[in-house]
């Protein structure tokens, strides 16, 4: 029996169906609670920026959204499918609609850039010609089409992160998960990565959940748009923010904020005030 035959039918997303829904999700490790009663929604085309101090459980939350970790309690729904208790074999099929960029890129170090980006397409037995075309297209998006035959170890940290973005978008996913895509990078390289996230948001309108602890990146994301003619990002007019970008803030395992950029900036919450200052 082929895998295609056993793979479950994944219902196509309707326009108003949320991409991700967390309902009262909790998880802990070795008896210690890490995330407690987390609930939020990522609507279609929306970009949600998850902020919080280091070690608060942001990456754990992101991995749960991809089914890489399972919650102890609560429900996680992705494209209308409950993934909290979904068997791994069915999750493999669902993950075809999700792209994820890991904290350090997580590129396969024994494969070339081309094979890293093409990995999912090769596994799906897509014709070689189409693979090459889509890989070049994805690498062109991150402006790295000249690195096809290089190995990850031959690239800089920023380039590796851009290849990871190319690998995540090559399958044209409906949902993108970014796990601290600028972590450990210098400010200039971080801006290049954030520009790519903005480009993906404004050109393809892909729903996304982005984890970061760098406030500067989060606010650049909210206050800039991508200019397709100039092929670069530009700031929105003074006082405006991207309506499709909103924030979630985690602290001590709890979701302490869920709202727009304006609400975040004008919040009276003492923790948020201190965190943003």
């Amino acid at each position, binding site marked *: 029996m082929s895998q295609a035959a056993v793979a479950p039918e994944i219902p196509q997303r309707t326009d108003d169906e949320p991409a991700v829904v967390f309902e009262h999700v909790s998880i802990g490790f070795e008896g210690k609670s890490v995330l407690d009663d987390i609930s939020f929604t990522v609507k279609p085309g929306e970009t949600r920026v998850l902020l919080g101090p280091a070690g608060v459980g942001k990456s754990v939350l992101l*991995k749960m959204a991809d089914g890489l970790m399972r919650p102890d309690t609560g429900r996680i729904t992705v494209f209308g499918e409950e993934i909290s208790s979904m068997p791994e074999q069915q999750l*493999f099929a669902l993950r075809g609609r999700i792209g994820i960029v890991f904290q350090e890129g997580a590129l396969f170090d024994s494969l070339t850039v081309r094979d890293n980006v093409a990995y999912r397409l090769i596994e799906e037995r897509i014709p070689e010609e189409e693979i090459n075309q889509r890989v070049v297209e994805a690498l062109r998006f991150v402006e790295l089409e000249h690195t096809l035959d290089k190995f990850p170890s031959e690239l800089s940290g920023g380039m590796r992160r851009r290849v990871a973005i190319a690998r995540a978008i090559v399958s044209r996913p409906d949902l993108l998960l970014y796990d601290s895509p600028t972590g450990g990078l210098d400010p200039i390289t971080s801006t290049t990565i954030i520009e790519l996230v903005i480009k993906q948001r404004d050109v393809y309108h892909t729903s996304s959940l982005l984890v970061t602890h760098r406030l500067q990146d989060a606010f650049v994301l909210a206050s800039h748009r991508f200019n397709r003619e100039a092929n670069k990002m530009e700031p929105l007019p003074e006082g405006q923010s991207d309506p499709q970008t909103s924030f979630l803030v985690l602290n001590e395992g709890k979701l302490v904020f869920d709202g727009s950029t304006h609400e975040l900036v004008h919040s009276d919450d003492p923790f948020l005030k201190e965190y943003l200052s």
Partner: protein
Amino acid sequence: MAIATLDRAAKKGVTAVQEYALISGRALSNLFRRPFYGADIFTQADIIGVGSIPIVILTGFFTGGVLALQSASTLAQFGAAAVTGQLVSFSMIKELGPVLTSLMVSGRNASGMASELGSMMVTEQIDAMRALGTDPLKKLVMPRIVATVVMLFFLTIISDAIGILGGAAVSVFLLGQDSSQYFHNAYQSLRYADLVQGMVKPLIFGLIIATIGCYYGMTTRGGTQGVGRSTTQAVVVSSVLIIASDFVISRFMIGIFGR
């Protein structure tokens, strides 16, 4: 306090066994599921099997040689130096061939598997593989198990043959024994049961090496230090299990075949 510590240790032990059984079981059940990673099996067979041939040949040759050297003098005291060939072939085929080959392959490959998969775990490459829709148990673990079991079987046969040749070299060139007598004794005294015993062991030992190596690799935590710890544990645990299971298999086989 002491009870709580014991309780934690027991739970940890049971969880480890459960996790080991799940990883091994799921990897083996993937053998008959598509997609079939045939190319990965061949790659691993080359790394594990062909790559281990030099150490297996060297180990087998010198083990057979030293066995002949040590046993010939003892046998000579009873006027039985002529059965040196029989003793070497018996020992090599039933015990030393399978066990020493497995220990060598364990040292070389259980550590390799644990460190390779462990590095992939701590750099999130395993998670990336799952996120990209590939089951790492099917893509990484299953080919290693199949390749180790198959290749260890053939490596043991090579080791047995080279060991008997090593014994012959010592018996003939150092001890001045007759070569045809050595080989005649070595061959004629062997029974079907001896060969079965010698051929079943590498299949079990191969399974132990690959599953233990992959288990420690796939459960690695704690960065580069964790990778080092997994590598050491994989070699130690697989070596101890090989020797312990050798005793159990030998007792079982003697029970069945009576020799």
